[in-house]
């Protein structure tokens, strides 16, 4: 609750900006009427229709969880949620909405961070949660075909006895759905090892904005036959069509996992360490996570995980969490041990010291430090969060420059910005830049934006590495995509969705 209360203040600041562009995308769109419900009732059972309109006339409280995101930061006012059970039903709904110019927001687990899955106004919400069947799994090729509404954790559970895993893992795995994961091109903890969904998704079934079903649900590893259309829908955040089925390449389950936390004397050592770690661990390296000293101390202060011993953190400027997963424990441990030995015995060691988890409890405990950073930052104050991709060697520079900039503006003190911290997935070039302030204020916001976006743009980085654009960052898209790119994105959008009914007001400015 603490979390949502803090974030609830943000729309007050951000709201004006969101409203400046959203009506344009929604201008020509109509609201759902009772006549529309009559039509939907022809092919949908009453249980698939939740609406405040008559005849069903559900209380608006029943729509709350669909109209608001989990952080309670974005608020829609939709009257109607439809929960189709089949691709055909999705198609019929979309066809009707296209003819009637009704905006549609496709919704999976509604766990996004950028307001991409809730309506901006009163668009119809199309929830995929009733489409949760696993269609097939081949334990030789590892190819899994599933409905879009399958919850990530349920896929993981389904695959476990077959000794496979989904090549994707997120904190939200208990609620997020595979269709939403694909639509947002979710990154997460396994990306370093298994690559992005652009690689592991083999095929998609998509309902296009005119109701056509595009069946590209192939189970082929190789298929070079013309344009690879499915790639357009991966990360399109539901603006080009609704993903209803996913064919994904599951990975063999690792038989052993280890992790170590390394303490580094200076940031400059992170990259040489990454190179050396990659060289020696090669295929068993599954995570390489960076955190600076400030954020580590915040994690310890707020009781995340079990802290290292004082002598192990002394003189450390930053930390790196390395995880291995492989097929044979002895082999993995041998590799890890020889890496650690060579690191410790080097003439000019890259690391001060480090600790190794000797039990699963310690394994989780080390991860808890890394995974608890978000929470620690929220407990410390009001966080401005930037999820950015920049070249690896610029991680520290981004943090330092942001800090200096705030200092110059006179905002770096107890009552304004308390900390500027950086952590993230080194392996993926993804930095989480967090500015921890005493309170959200217009001055701090003005000092940070567009400063951070411009800084990221100057490194040719991305303003949204894994969280997407949604409704939150449409105004900032220009910092990561040049005019030509945005123009062509708009052309593609117009080609697929000439009436602009699919997730209006999201992604494109």
């Amino acid at each position, binding site marked *: 609750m603490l979390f949502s209360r803090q974030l609830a203040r943000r729309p007050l600041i951000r709201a004006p900006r969101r409203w400046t562009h959203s009506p344009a995308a929604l201008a020509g769109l109509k609201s759902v009427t009772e006549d529309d419900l009559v039509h939907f009732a022809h092919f949908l059972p009453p249980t698939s229709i939740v609406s405040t309109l008559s005849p069903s006339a559900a209380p608006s409280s029943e729509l709350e969880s669909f109209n608001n995101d989990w952080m309670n930061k974005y608020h829609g006012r939709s009257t109607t949620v439809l929960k189709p059970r089949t691709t055909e039903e999705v198609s019929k709904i979309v066809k009707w909405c296209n003819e009637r110019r009704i905006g549609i927001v496709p919704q999976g687990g509604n766990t996004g961070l950028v307001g991409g899955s809730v309506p901006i106004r009163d668009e119809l919400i199309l929830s995929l949660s009733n489409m949760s069947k696993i269609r097939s799994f081949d334990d030789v090729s590892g190819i899994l075909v599933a409905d879009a509404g399958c919850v990530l954790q349920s896929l993981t559970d389904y695959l476990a006895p077959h000794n496979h895993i989904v090549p994707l893992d997120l904190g939200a795995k208990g609620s997020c759905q595979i269709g939403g994961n694909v639509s947002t091109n979710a990154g997460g903890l396994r990306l370093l090892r298994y690559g992005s969904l652009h690689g592991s998704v083999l095929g998609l079934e998509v309902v296009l904005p005119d109701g056509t079903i595009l069946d590209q649900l192939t189970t082929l590893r190789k298929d070079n036959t013309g344009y690879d259309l499915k790639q357009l829908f991966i990360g399109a955040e539901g603006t080009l069509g609704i993903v209803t089925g996913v064919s994904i390449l599951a990975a063999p389950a690792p038989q052993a996992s280890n992790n170590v936390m390394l303490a580094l004397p200076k940031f400059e050592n992170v990259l040489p360490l990454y190179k050396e770690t990659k060289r020696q661990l090669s295929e068993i390296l599954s995570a390489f996570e960076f955190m600076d000293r400030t954020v580590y101390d915040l994690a310890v202060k707020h009781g995340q995980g079990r802290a290292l011993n004082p002598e192990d953190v002394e003189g450390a400027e930053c930390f790196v969490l390395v995880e291995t997963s492989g097929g044979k424990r002895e082999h993995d441990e041998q590799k890890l041990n020889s890496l650690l030995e060579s690191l*410790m015995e080097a003439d000019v060691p890259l690391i001060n010291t*480090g600790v190794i988890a000797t039990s699963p409890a310690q394994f989780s405990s080390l991860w808890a430090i890394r995974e608890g950073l978000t929470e620690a930052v929220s407990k410390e104050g009001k966080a401005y969060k930037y999820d950015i991709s920049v070249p690896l060697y610029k991680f520290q520079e981004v943090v330092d420059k942001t800090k200096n900039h705030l200092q110059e503006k006179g905002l770096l003190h107890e009552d304004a910005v308390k900390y500027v911290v950086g952590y993230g997935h080194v392996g993926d070039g993804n930095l989480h830049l967090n500015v921890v302030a005493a309170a959200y204020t217009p001055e701090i916001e003005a000092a940070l934006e567009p400063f951070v976006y411009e800084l990221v743009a100057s490194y040719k980085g991305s303003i949204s590495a894994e969280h997407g654009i949604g409704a939150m960052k449409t105004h900032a898209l220009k910092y990561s995509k040049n005019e030509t790119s945005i123009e062509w994105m708009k052309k593609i959008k117009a080609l697929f969705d000439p009436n602009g009914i699919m997730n209006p007001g999201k992604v494109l400015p």
Partner: protein
Amino acid sequence: MRPSAVRLLNILVPVKRTVDYAVKIRVNPDQKGVDLNVKHSMNPFDEIAVEEAVRLRERLKDEVKSIKVVTIGPTKAAETLRTALAMGADSGIHVEVPDSAPPPEPLGIAKALRAVIQREKEGVDLVILGKQAIDDDASQTGQMLAGLLDWAQATFASKVDVDPKAKTANVTREIDGGLEELKCQLPLVVTTDLRLNEPRYASLPNIMKAKKKPIEKLTPADLKIDLTPLLETVKVTEPPKRKGGGKVESVDELIAKLKEAGITPVKS
């Protein structure tokens, strides 16, 4: 006061290699045992014992002369010793039993530990070990060892304070509904409970050092003991699968269901 020679403590920590507690246990098809081809690590209670020994040294400094760890188990049990050495123990003893041998029972282990203690030239003042191993859950070894040696014992410890000069220890035990504080005379056997401490991570420099620490290898024959089990395992079965619950719409329905299940209200 009469000046006395400083009494230095020698601590022995027996450790056991067990199936890791995070592993899902699978019963073998023959129902005589469980699948052992899975991740093993140090019995968590023994890890707490090693940690406590190391903490005693951190508190008492030079008054703790030695921390020796001992394990009785197959070849791979040596890994468990290395982990204990990396946490801060000084040296190890590995009483090696053949990989094919049946797992020894608490009485055999207690006798082996007695033999180990008796051959220590400087003697042992304090034995700290887990209150039980998580594989057989017997919770007998510490008690049997104290009995065989005729030493004091303090089981299920949640706090241990040792006074080497007075040769006494104050131990807080976790008992039903509260805590019990004992004052014991050394030599003493302490078995550890979960809340005694939280074991540290093994740091890299200590892991490197651990590789150079001595491990003495012995066989049961060297100790003149017989580890043949006295018990025969008749059958091992999995607990019954939990049946899923159901949702009820109203209080009335709930009461009806409870009645159906034969649960009746108690008249007050």
